[in-house]
């Protein structure tokens, strides 16, 4: 257990925090560390400083705030569709740029957003639109708009490379409610024709988010879904 009272030595504190962050797979750049240190009181307990550092780092763009190495980034030809399959050991840290539910039609997702905008999901004003059927013990409610996943993610490594990934089975924490800019660590995964295939054992969710990106993503979501569904603008 780190000692409660910091010794107040900037170099030691910097080293300690850097090591901590590197162990979490988000090794900070020197520039970022310097900026961070200037904002803290050196005699704060080290554990608290580590936590704060992690929290703040997870809210940044890792292409500028973390150090890169060949081992911690994707191979540049990872998206090559000619390669049928390759195994990657990692660990590779990525940030989330986009997430999509490809199990549901875009249009049904647009309708769900519009229902929410009309206030139909607020308490006391719910409008029930799908009435359950009473068919027996085997009744499978084939209600497509309720399905969640699988999800397709757009990920970016510290080098700035964009790669798509897909859930093979449902991964805890993955969904359209994820924050954009969240960080994930991937290891021991397969890449098929340039698409990363993920199972729970491949993914460690670090969390975090980049406020500006997340806000924009939420604002644009309906418009983007509509475009993907094929709605031509100016009519609708």
């Amino acid at each position: 257990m780190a000692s409660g009272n910091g010794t107040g030595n900037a170099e030691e504190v910097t080293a300690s925090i850097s090591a901590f962050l590197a162990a979490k797979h988000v090794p900070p750049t020197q520039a970022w560390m310097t900026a961070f240190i200037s904002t803290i009181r050196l005699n704060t307990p080290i554990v608290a400083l580590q936590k704060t550092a992690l929290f703040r780092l997870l809210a940044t763009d890792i292409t500028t705030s973390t150090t890169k190495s060949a081992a911690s980034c994707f191979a540049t030809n990872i998206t090559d569709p000619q390669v049928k399959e390759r195994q990657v050991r990692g660990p590779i840290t990525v940030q989330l740029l986009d997430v999509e539910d490809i199990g549901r039609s875009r249009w049904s997702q647009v309708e769900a957003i519009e229902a929410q905008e009309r206030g139909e999901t607020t308490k006391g004003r719910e409008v029930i639109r799908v009435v359950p059927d009473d068919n027996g013990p085997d009744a499978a409610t084939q209600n497509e708009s309720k399905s969640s996943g699988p999800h397709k993610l757009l990920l970016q490594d510290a080098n700035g490379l964009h790669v798509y990934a897909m859930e093979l089975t449902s991964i805890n924490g993955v969904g359209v409610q994820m924050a954009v800019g969240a960080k994930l660590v991937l290891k021991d995964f397969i890449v098929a024709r340039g698409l990363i295939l993920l199972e729970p054992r491949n993914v460690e969710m670090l969390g975090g988010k980049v406020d500006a990106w997340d806000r924009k993503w939420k604002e644009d979501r309906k418009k983007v879904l509509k475009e993907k569904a094929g709605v031509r603008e100016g009519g609708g």
Partner: protein
Amino acid sequence: MVTKVLCVAEKPSIAKAVANHLAGGQVQTRNIQGNPYVKNYEFSYNFPTWGQCNVTMTSVLGHLLSHDFDAQYKSWRSCDPSALFEAHIETFVEDDKKAVAENIKQQARYNRVLYIWTDCDREGENIGTEIRSVASQGNPSFRQPGNTVRARFSNIERAHIINAARSPVQLDEAQSNAVSSRIELDLRIGASFTRNLTMSLRPMIQEHTGEERSQVISYGSCQFPTLGFVVERYIRVRNFVPETFWGIKVMHEKDRIKVSFNWARNHLFDRMAVVILFERCLTARTARVTKVQTKPTSKWKPLPLTTVELQKCGSRFLRLDSQRVMQVAEQLYQKGWISYPRTETDQFDRGMDLQGLVQKQTQGGPWAQFAQGLMNGGFSQPRSGRNNDKAHPPIHPVNFVVPASLSQEEQRVHEFVVRRFLACCSHDARGSKTEINLLYGFEVFSTSGLVVLERNFLDVYPYDKWTSSQDLPDFREGQVFEPTEARMYEGQTSPPGYLTEPELIALMDANGIGTDATMAEHIAKIKTRDYVQTRPRARQQRREGEEEEYEPGEAAEPDVGRGRGRGRGRARARGGRGGANGRGGGAISGVQEFIPTTLGVALVEGYENMGFETSLTKPFLRKEMELRMKAICEGRKTKAEVVHESIEQYRDVYIRTQQRLDSLRAAVRKYVFQEDG
């Protein structure tokens, strides 16, 4: 000293039936002055409560009293519509009911006890208090608690009626108050909003069309949410954007049987993802059977029949719209063939003699043999649903009647009620289901086979389908094989259909709009007001995966005549007397779907665009009102409280609507005049 009892039923047919049951046929019939339909039946009867009595049994014709604003508010120009929230309402007897009321008043003078025999639901309770108040004008002693009583009955079968007659109860003031508050609210809110709406829009419509006709654009707190559902679905269909999806199909031929396996992911909306997953399947080359499971399965027999269910099934299977189904059911009830058709209860009381009812159906009809089978050991206690309105049992046949003695439409409804009841008393259908799962690459595929072993209830209830699938060849867990065929396929999503009546009823029910007794009327109202039209749904629109629907054997009878209308004439809101003009009702083929008119769309869009707080076309305002009605019935709220709360809510909406009328006008211009918005 012989006691004199005055019995009053809600309709002449009930009065006649009850009188004959009690009197054992020894009835003297007298006409009354001023109305040829109402009769006074005189007989003697020995009531346990009062001993030997001279009984006069008569009836009213639905509601006796009407309500309207005082004369000074009647003209539309006399006041601002919002004044109607507080304006005084007077209660009076309408001209066409004066003779009926006079009869009650006169007869009241000669009798010591008033015995109410109105139908046992909220409206009936309210009519009962109306009868009491009119009768009390002739005999004030009826106001005292002991002198007015009420009969509790659910059908017109002899033994049941005699039983009811011997155990009178008190009128339920709470239920009557709930109805009074609804009548008041419908009047105030309906009138004020209708005037406002019409005066805001009619001038611009008249100017545009050049017509002078006095078109009323009516508002009703139930109609609008009902219309809202129709318009919403219409817009959803119009706005729908079809999207392509991709899936993987695996087929394997074994023992000369071709078995199709379905992908566990169903289909995905990303082509690249599916191509990659498919390739991995092909790379794996073989599939492995991961599960082979055979287990018993069943198709549940239906739940006991409620009003909502009857209306839905009437639309789907009997080609009768909800209003017509209820009218026909009402006739069957009055003739004593089925129990009271307005009920929410979907569970049979444990003590009820269901076997006795089944026995009655062995006497004839196409179900006689099946009924006999039930008596010979096939009987099974019906399922219990979750609803019990404590007033009436589920709808069931009460007596045996030769089908040929009923009209065509009555036969269809009656047959449905009988078959449903017998199905309830049967066993579930039983079968055996085999499920086979494969792991192919990383992907899961499955198939299932069904063997129906015992049809049971299905033999009497053709409205449900359950058939054996093709035989499945033998697979063993762990078995590995190379599938005969694996391929990717492409498809497109398709829009939902326009709203059909059964769907609309289900939505109204799920969202708390209207009660079982009123839903059909709201639907009829939006038709007569020209807010929606109906048309048969085209056959091809049925989507993939939908089961074959039951087809009735014969074409429907054309919609002639409506019966007298008076018996069911429970004028709900001031503006409407029910009785749709038959447009689209009881059509000959195809389920009816609802298409809003341009006016209907304009109204919904106009109000929607006014904003969140003025959602007149959303269910929640009306739903809250219905919940408050329930609170009155349960004694948790008073009539005054409820009227006050609802008025305040709607007044708020009224004010906001006033401020945003432009939104309505713009919608009318866009949709009704077809000007580019």
